Structure formats: structure tokens, C-alpha cells
């Protein structure tokens, strides 16, 4: 019969339309500004810089190695290395970024800066409501605006942050153990002038891998 296909299709539409009143599974949209879908754990928008502790200027993990600046595909990162050094999270003396700018109007959220960073210093944020009336200055994020505490990272990417913290903690413990062993070895070497020395490093604590 001519028109049978059309009637079938209309019945399907009617089923969907009426179903949306009774079946909540058929209502697939949310009323956005009032109601928000929670961000996925892996979600990414734009990069931010992590600092440890309370002071953003002191605890910034970035050591201005400029790898992210070189690897960034659209070249939206601008870094100036500091002249002096300051201690980093393990107490080693390192450079720090005197200037660290990201132009988020150029950034394409590809996450390559995060992947290439050897110091776990730059991570992806999930904040996306960044509209601004000043399209040049307002979208050029400087060091102060980019710096966010490690707690923020834990809040937005809990699994990943726990893994990173574990790795950094192990690294730090390893370095501390090494420093301690070195100090002990020094004391022993001083004492070794009088007494013959036992096997070295046997007293060093087990290294957490």
C-alpha cells in the first residue's frame, strides 16, 4: 500500500515523542546552565601549572626546561628562564620560569605539553567557561593565573594525580635515601682512617621503587 512506509515512520516518531513523557531514559538532554553534567575524569580543556605547598611562587614544579615550548604544535607557550636558581620539590637547586605565558586562544588542548613534561609540572585543567571581553589580554594566561595547587589536580583527576604523587614521592624518597647514604658514607670515610671499613651501603634503607 502506498504510504505504508510513511505511516510506519510517523508511528515511530509518535512513540518517541510520547515516550519522552513517561520514560526518563528517552530524555537525553540536560538544561545546561542550570544543570551540568559532571566532567569526566580524563576530560581536558587547557593546561595549568602545578605547585606544591601553599606558596605558588615557591612551590612551582616547573624548572623552565622549555621542552613543552618546543614541542607545542601551535606554539602557544612562551617561557623565559630565570637567571638565578632556587630549590625545587626535592631540594635540588633548579632554574624556574621567570615568565610562563600560555595563549589559550591559540592552544588546541592537545595535551602534548603534559606528555613531554619530565617534571609533572604541567597538567590539563577541566575549566571551560573562560569567555572574556578582552580577547587578547584576557586570554593570555601568565604564571600567576596558570599556577594551581596540587590539591586542585587531585580534585579534577584523582586517579592520575595519585599515581603521579606516588611516583614523585618514590623519587624523592630515593633521592633522600641516597643523600643520607652519601652523608653516612662520608662519616664512615672519616672514621675509616682509624677502623677498617665494612661493606658500603649495607646500612642504607631499602629503596622504594
Amino acid at each position: 500500500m502506498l504510504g505504508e512506509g510513511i505511516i510506519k515512520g510517523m508511528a515511530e516518531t509518535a512513540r518517541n515523542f510520547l515516550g519522552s513523557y513517561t520514560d526518563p531514559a528517552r530524555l537525553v538532554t540536560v538544561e545546561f546552565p542550570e544543570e551540568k553534567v559532571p566532567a569526566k575524569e580524563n576530560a581536558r580543556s587547557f593546561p595549568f601549572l602545578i605547585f606544591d605547598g601553599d606558596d605558588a611562587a615557591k612551590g612551582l614544579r616547573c624548572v623552565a626546561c622549555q621542552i613543552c615550548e618546543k614541542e607545542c604544535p601551535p606554539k602557544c607557550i612562551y617561557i623565559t628562564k630565570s637567571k638565578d636558581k632556587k630549590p625545587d620539590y626535592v631540594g635540588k637547586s633548579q632554574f624556574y620560569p621567570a615568565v610562563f605565558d600560555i595563549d589559550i586562544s591559540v592552544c588546541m588542548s592537545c595535551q602534548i605539553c603534559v606528555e613531554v613534561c619530565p617534571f609533572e609540572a604541567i597538567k590539563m585543567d577541566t575549566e571551560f567557561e573562560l569567555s572574556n571581553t578582552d580577547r587578547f589580554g584576557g586570554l593570555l594566561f601568565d604564571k600567576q593565573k596558570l599556577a594551581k595547587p596540587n590539591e586542585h589536580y587531585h580534585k579534577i583527576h584523582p586517579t592520575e594525580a595519585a599515581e603521579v604523587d606516588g611516583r614523585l614521592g618514590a623519587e624523592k624518597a630515593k633521592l633522600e635515601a641516597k643523600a643520607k647514604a652519601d652523608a653516612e658514607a662520608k662519616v664512615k670515610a672519616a672514621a675509616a682512617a682509624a677502623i677498617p671499613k665494612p661493606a658500603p651501603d649495607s646500612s642504607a634503607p631499602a629503596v622504594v621503587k
Partner: protein
Amino acid sequence: METITEHPEPKYEILPKTSTNGEAAGNLLEVAMGPHHPSTHGVFRMDVVLDGEKVVKLKPVFGYLHRNHEKIAENTTYLGSMPYTDRLDYLCSMTNNWAYALSVEKLAGLQPPERAEYIRVITAELTRLVNHTCLVGFLLQDMGALGTPLMYAFREREWILDLFEALSGSRMMCNYMRFGGCRVDLPAGWIEQAKKAVDSYSGFLDEFEKFLTENEILVARTQGVGVLSSELAINASITGPMLRASGVNYDIRKVDKYGIYERFDFRVPLGDHGDVYDRYMIRLLEMRESVKILNQALRDIPAGPIIDPKAKIRGFRPKAGEAYGRIEGPKGELGFYLISDGSPNPYRYRVRPPSLINLTVLEDMCLGQDVADAVIILGSVDIVLGEVDR
């Protein structure tokens, strides 16, 4: 002072609307459809010459979205052009990533581990579902079914985009594959979620077919329209669903057996007539085959590492040589041809875009058809201007 400027040759002459003695020479009319025409799926122009309603000449004009992709890729590192490949065919970033990763792996001699291969198949087939769902929705919208089928298609697509976001962090610009594997492992509970989405998909396809496949208007509009013969399709190196709708059995998943496709049991649907209806049906049937592959892959996926231990993120320099990696993208054969001179950047980077090459037969399909049919013929070619213009 007279300045001399060389004018380029006119592309083709504008037909005289009036004859020399002032009378009308005929009722030929030249119309520029696009670049801001809603049916051209982006900034694409069809210069058509019409005799009444019939198309007598058609010329596709593109390049409005040219972004210099290949040259940018030659000036950035191998890894740096991975996010740009997402933006080629922005509906199917996962397959674009895979094609590029495949050619770099051939160049550098990397072998992705088992689990990564399975993840690649799963994401690629999900991408095929996304692409074909979108295409069918848009095609029906071009035919005048405004809104409803497209919204149903987008509703289903959203479940898959949610999966992509949970996996890679971005709904469309996934940037997920890496040379020798994948970037991150599947998050907890992802497989179950994917199984749920895939299970509901065949129900959606049934609904969609009930909705439209027997619809008399659709049949009248599409059957016998825009016929592409298999000889012409082969000669013009058409690939993908368009080629198979013309009855040529050529699927790179079967021919090349890249990745681990030889392990899966699936069929290649073929068309008979090569008209718009066949191209529409091929997509629906291919989605069913994709669901079949997905069910097998989600069942069999092993545990293990997701990236080749030899793969390097920083300081990646493949040895000098050349490689061509190709996959069966949702639109056709997507290939990346790379020449390396041992530096961190490719010496030459070339994309074989299926959309562009499938577009070359547009005039042959449209000649003699109504102008309204030209719109749906273009819709059935399945182009994305990001890939056509690059």
C-alpha cells in the same frame, strides 16, 4: 604609468545569457551553490549550469578551508602533527590518528602490543558508527526530513562521544593514538559502558530502518538517482562505501588486513545499482557489521601493556626511509605517505584524503539529474571539508 598585471586564465567561460542580436540564447542558467549553502556540508561550492531543472554542467570548487596541513606537519615533529590529524576529518579523529600512527610505525619499525591493537579496532569501529550515523542523518536532512532523523542520529552518536571523552579526554579531537600504541589505558568500567552502548545500537538501527528505509518519499527520491558505474568508480579510484555501493568488493580491512582485522568475523556489504539508495543502505549495513566486530573485540580484549616499550615520546627520530600507511576509514582509503630524512620532522608528509578523491566523480553522477538531486548526491558522497581542503 601603466601597471602590467597578468590575469590568470579564466577557469571556464561564463555562458552568454543573450545572443548577439539581443534575443535569449536559451534557458541555461549558471548558479553558484555555496559556499554558504546549508546542503554543501561546509564551505564548498558547486558551480552548476542548469537547463531548466536539469544539471548540464557541474564544477566543484573547494579550498575555502585550506589550512596548509601538510606543510605544517613538515615543520613540526612527528608527534606534533598527531593533534592536527584530528582536524582533518573532524567526525572521525580516531581513524585519522590510526592511519597516521600506522604509517609512522611502518617508518620506525614499532609494533603495538596486543591490547593496543584491540583498543584501536574498538575505537575505529565506534568511529565508523559515529560517521555513518551522522552521514545518514545529514543525508535525510538534505532530502527534506528536517530535524527528526538527524536528532535521532545525534542522540545515538552522543553515547559514543561520551565513551571517547571518558577515554581520551575530548569528544571529537581525541588525539589518542601514539606511535607504537595508545596514550592511556581504558579507564575502569569503560568496557562495560561500551558494551552497553554497542548493545543498544542494533536496536537503534532497527528503529531507524523502520522509520525510513521503506518510506515512499525516500525511495522515490533516491532510487536510480546519481548512479555511479563500477568501471568509473574503479577508474576514478573511488574507495570506501561509495565503491562498495557500486558493487566492487574492496575493503582494506579485508585486503590489507592491517592491525588485527583478520581475527574478526564480518562481512562486506555490497550494493547493486550504485545509486544514492544503495549508498544509504550500505552505510546502514556496515554499521551492523561494525556492531558485530565491536562485540567480538569487546569480548576478546586481553590485559597487558598499551604501548611498545621501544616507543619514545621525546626525541623521536625515525631512520631515513619512506612509508605509506593506509586504513579503511569510514569514508574510504585514508593513507599517510611519509618520507623521513632522519630528522625529528618528516621531510614529506602527504595525506590521501578519501573525501577529496570521492568528490572527483560528482559531475559524472549529477549530469542529467535535477538540481535538487545534486544536493542529495553530494550528501551521499559523504564529504567533510576539513579533509577535502586540508
